[in-house]
């Protein structure tokens, strides 16, 4: 493309010489003489240059009153004239140097003609050649005049509104004798201005060296009575002053045909004219001008008087609370059909602000697709190729410029890949005759509240009467209504092109008065269970929380598993801390999956969606004071949206007394990219093989929970949990008691208790050990006791430590071990408490009392956890709590052990106290006999 600057009139304009017109010549006027015009007129004079190509000698447009005076009144109905002439052969002013082939004119946006109210001349009438060559078009189809040079001289003819098919928005024509020329307007993509031209003008006849085409602002105006042509009548008026000698009235409706823009920008509007020749087709002389021949800029004015009273009424499809809803949006713009006054301003921008609580529905996303910019074809007139799944609504636009309404659809734009770079956007794609209206709408969603604002900006400056949007209803509707009933209002704002800073604002009532029950309550349900409910078996565990529609949303989940429902952490990799926040943990740390259902209505969105990334549950390290954590990674992928991973971390702790697993989640995300996440179903499946272990008790236990709502309510649903086949488990643990140190009365021995269990045994539930009467409490060795406050703070004084305990469990990599305290209790005496620390902290508390004059320690709540070996070693000597009341070696002393398994089996024994009696004596070596 070459760009040449030419002087047009008094102003410097840019002239493009380009090889492509940019439009397809659909109007075939191969017989006509030569030239064409577009819509409205005035002249700008271009200095001809020596060129072998076609060029305008003069070209311009004029917007004027019928009297010829220019007008720039916005929203008025002026006459419009396009004029050009071309350099002629030397000595013959009627023959152009190059025969015009295509003459085309771009009008500024908003400058349009409206042929709909007017009768149209049929093509057969238009093409009929009567004697003398006049067309048979009726007078009431005339919408302007044409003056052109047919090679022999100037001819004056009428410009008629012609019948046209659905492929073009309008067609106009003029003819004389064998000359038949049509002017076909089209709607430009992008700015939706009108371009009109005559293409492939017939070259068989002498070309026209000049032409002047005028469209009347109000064809029925008596101002034009002397310019009308009687059907079939010859029509000449070489003087150009008066065309008819007698006025001719018309039966055409007395309504405007031509509209000036309803926009008054600071800068003048521009016109662009293009022309090429048969001798050099495709090489266009392009002229752009923004003033008329007198240098008056096309600067529209008077916008302040233009009426603008549109209405925008959004109507949700339901009055039910917390329900999916479709949406009907009706826009009406009162039009001025009469010849007097001004037309209403076109709408530049509409804004719909939904009340808080009306949000995007996740349920709508399932199965939805999105349309790319290329598929929508924004900026071109090609048919959109958006996938059917991207359609979210229909649109019908009724414009006074067309007999039939424009039909189309609203499609979802691709996330981020849209003109706004936004998460949510939509395209309005409506088909008109020969053009498409393609508009992008931004859907602004408040990231904190989810409040929706729909914005259509830079709407075409084309008048329309109504626009009706119908967004689909039903369970997968795009929107959801507020959770609670009430009187809401939808704020609408409509900005006119005439006065963009003066919107018409309205608040449209939105009443939600149905389905009010249940709103605001909070009564979630809980389900939990294992796949193989056999005592002591390894089995996947599932926990599920469901919330009814309309209830307060879930905020936080806390589960307490039943005693004995544990997991084997041995050999399970942990998700590194660095990866934990992202949820992109290694597979080796995965222990399960999660499934969630989100949204409102009968068909919530289930995640993961088919074909989308799977969810995962990973084991991770310490978090929020807990020794372990679970990371739930839910890829927020649904339909065409991908919001990354939703990562929820859950602290995993143990009740130190019961070893019950306590899982407390972080607050659940409530809104994602502006879409409130209404949790309907949260299902956690811990399914890693050989990971979870069942209790060995067949008593009915419970999975309990504390489920918090976003509004602070709490529910505590629990569900029974029971395994069976406890009888198949053995229960034969061994407890050995061993005394080290002195065996004499008054000695302070060291007692070591060692418990061992076998495979496939029930865990211990209750154990009591009564020392023989030979062992008294040595109260003088009581240093102090650890208070419960100190114990909780892990600040027990050293003097309160009386032993050390170690527990070995197959579930953990390392044994649990720690000191043994005397700790304050609610019993008569302080408790004997083993503080077992390691991968988890466990407390094992035994009540101390006397039984049959023996010191008895009873562990009444032994956790239902597998322990293969447990060693409790008391201090010896001056720190021993025991003193021998007699010589242990004189007679064996037996302890009394009573144990009850978690499966209910009893095991009692009276093991002897192992003492060093007899072990410390060394045999005297036998004297060797003397030789």
């Amino acid at each position, binding site marked *: 493309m070459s760009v040449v600057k030419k002087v047009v009139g008094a102003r410097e304009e840019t002239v493009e010489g380009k090889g492509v017109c940019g439009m397809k010549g659909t109007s075939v006027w191969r017989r006509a003489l030569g030239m064409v015009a577009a819509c409205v007129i005035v002249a700008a004079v271009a200095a001809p240059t020596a060129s072998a190509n076609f060029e305008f000698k003069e070209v311009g447009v004029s917007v004027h009153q019928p009297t010829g005076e220019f007008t720039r009144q916005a929203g008025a109905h002026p006459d419009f004239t396009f004029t050009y002439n071309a350099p002629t052969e030397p000595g013959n002013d009627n023959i152009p140097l190059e025969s015009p082939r295509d003459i085309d004119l771009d009008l500024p946006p908003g400058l349009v003609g409206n042929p709909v109210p007017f009768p149209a001349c049929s093509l057969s009438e238009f093409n009929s050649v009567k004697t003398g060559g006049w067309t048979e078009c009726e007078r009431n189809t005339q919408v302007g005049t044409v003056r052109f040079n047919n090679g022999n001289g100037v001819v004056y003819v009428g410009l008629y509104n012609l019948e046209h098919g659905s492929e073009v928005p309008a067609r106009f024509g003029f003819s004389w004798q064998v000359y038949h020329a049509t002017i076909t307007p089209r709607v430009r993509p992008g700015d939706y201005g009108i371009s009109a031209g005559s293409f492939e003008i017939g070259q068989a006849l002498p070309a026209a060296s000049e032409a002047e085409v005028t469209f009347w602002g109000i064809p029925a105006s008596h101002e034009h009575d002397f310019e009308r042509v009687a059907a079939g009548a010859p029509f000449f008026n070489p003087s150009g002053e008066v065309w008819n000698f007698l006025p001719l009235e018309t039966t055409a409706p007395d309504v405007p045909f031509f509209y000036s823009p309803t926009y008054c920008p600071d800068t003048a509007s521009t016109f662009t004219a293009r022309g090429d020749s048969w001798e050099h087709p495709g090489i266009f002389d392009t002229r752009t001008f923004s003033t008329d021949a007198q240098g008056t800029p096309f600067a529209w004015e008077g916008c302040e008087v233009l009426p603008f009273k549109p209405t925008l009424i959004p109507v949700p499809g339901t009055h039910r609370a917390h329900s999916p809803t479709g949406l009907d949006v009706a826009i009406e713009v009162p039009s001025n059909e009469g010849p007097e006054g001004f037309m209403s301003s076109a709408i530049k921008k509409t804004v719909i602000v939904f009340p808080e609580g009306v949000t995007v529905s996740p349920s709508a996303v399932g199965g939805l697709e999105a349309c790319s910019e290329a598929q929508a074809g924004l900026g071109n007139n090609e048919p959109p190729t958006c996938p059917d799944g991207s359609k979210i609504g229909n649109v019908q636009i009724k414009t006074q410029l067309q007999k039939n309404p424009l039909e189309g659809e609203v499609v979802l734009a691709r996330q981020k890949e849209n003109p706004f770079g936004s998460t949510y956007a939509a395209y309005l794609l409506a088909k008109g005759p020969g053009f498409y209206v393609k508009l992008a709408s931004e859907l602004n969603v408040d990231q904190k509240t989810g409040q929706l604002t729909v914005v259509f900006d830079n709407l075409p400056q084309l008048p329309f009467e109504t626009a009706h949007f119908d967004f689909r209803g039903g369970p997968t509707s795009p929107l959801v209504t507020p959770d609670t009933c009430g009187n809401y209002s939808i704020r609408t704002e409509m900005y006119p092109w005439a006065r963009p800073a003066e919107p018409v604002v309205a608040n449209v009532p939105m009443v939600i008065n149905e389905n009010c029950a249940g709103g605001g309550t909070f009564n979630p349900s809980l389900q939990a269970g294992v796949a193989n409910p056999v005592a002591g078996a390894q089995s996947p565990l599932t926990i599920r929380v469901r919330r009814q529609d309309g209830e307060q949303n879930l905020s936080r989940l806390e589960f307490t598993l039943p005693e004995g429902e544990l997991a084997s952490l041995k050999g399970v990799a942990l998700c590194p801390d660095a990866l934990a926040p992202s949820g992109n943990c290694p597979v080796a740390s995965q222990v399960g999956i999660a499934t969630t259902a989100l949204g409102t209505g009968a068909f919530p969105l289930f995640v993961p969606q088919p074909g989308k990334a799977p969810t995962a549950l990973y084991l991770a390290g310490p978090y929020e004071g807990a020794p372990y954590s679970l990371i739930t990674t839910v890829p927020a992928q649904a339909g065409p949206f991908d919001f990354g991973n939703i990562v929820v971390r859950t602290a995993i702790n143990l009740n130190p007394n019961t070893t019950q697993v306590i899982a407390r989640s972080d607050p659940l995300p409530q809104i994602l990219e502006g879409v409130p996440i209404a949790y309907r179903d949260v299902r956690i499946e811990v399914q890693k093989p050989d990971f979870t272990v069942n209790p060995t008790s067949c008593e009915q236990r419970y999975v309990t929970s504390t489920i918090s709502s976003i509004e602070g309510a709490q529910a505590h649903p629990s569900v029974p949990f029971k395994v069976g086949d406890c009888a198949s488990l053995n229960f034969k643990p061994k407890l050995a008691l061993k005394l080290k140190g002195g065996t004499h009365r008054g000695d302070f021995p060291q007692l070591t208790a060692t418990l061992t269990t076998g495979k496939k045994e029930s865990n211990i539930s209750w154990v009591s050990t009564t020392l023989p009467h030979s062992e008294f409490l040595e109260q003088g060795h009581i240093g*102090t006791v650890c208070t419960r*406050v100190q114990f909780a703070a892990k600040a027990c004084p050293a003097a309160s430590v009386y032993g050390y305990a170690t527990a070995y469990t197959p579930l953990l990599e390392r044994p649990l071990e720690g000191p043994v305290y005397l700790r304050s209790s609610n019993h008569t005496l302080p408790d004997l408490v083993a503080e077992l620390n390691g991968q988890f902290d466990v407390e094992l508390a035994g009540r101390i009392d006397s039984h049959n004059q023996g010191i008895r320690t009873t562990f009444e709540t032994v956790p239902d956890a597998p322990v293969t070996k447990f060693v409790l070693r008391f201090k010896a000597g001056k720190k021993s709590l025991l003193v021998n*009341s007699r010589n242990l070696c004189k007679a064996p002393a037996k302890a009394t052990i009573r144990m009850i398994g978690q499966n209910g089996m009893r095991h009692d024994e009276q093991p002897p106290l192992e003492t060093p009696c007899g072990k410390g004596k060394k045999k005297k070596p036998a004297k060797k006999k003397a030789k």
Partner: protein
Amino acid sequence: MTRRRIAVAAALVALATACVGGASAETIRSEDLLISFKTKLAPSALPRKGTAPINVSLGGSISTADGAPPPQLQTITFAISRHGRLDYRGLPACHYHQIQPASTAEALEACPHSIVGEGTFGAHVLLPEQSPFPSQGEAIAFNGIFHGDHVIYVQIYGRRPLPQSQVLVFHLGRTTGQYGVTMSAELPQVAANWGYVSGLSLKLGRTFTFKGKKRGFLSAGCPAPPGFPGATFAMARATFGFDDGSTLPVSTTGHCRPTD
């Protein structure tokens, strides 16, 4: 003094003796600390000249007016009337290790011939964050030898809350004035520092035969002047020493009537 006056005085003393009998009790208060001391002499009929075997009951209890734990008792000293006599000659002596640790039965079995009395011992244990619980036990007094000195061992055995035993070593001594024999012991800590003694009662006395003569571990005569039907005298004094350094003496009077 006319016979009639003597008769009236004797009648008043007899009345007083009859009213009080052989038992006496005193309670003193020092701020909120309440100490009660009870004594009893049996029999109360004693020879005006010479002595006869007696049993003496000594009982002390410590409490506070506001219910707060009292200070810890560290020492206790009993002083017995100078009219009394303590005689352990001929009594087998028991050794500490024979009766500690031991249950009452075991202690009795270990030193059956050294028994010189019995009683009870009470304490309260107040552990941090723990409800106070009593610790009580039986007490057996043995004639004993401790580091070469004659002592009285008070062996205490309690079953509850846990089987445990203690031995209080009462060292014997003499004092001047109204009192003669003294018995002093340092009390062990009860449950480390968390316990406090709430009471100790002992009934001392035993008769035995030594060298063919019947003897009493404790013996006394009635110091009633001739013609008087009875006498009132300083029976015993208990001195309680606490961990705050304070000592509180409490004394009782005794009454006797001559057997002749």
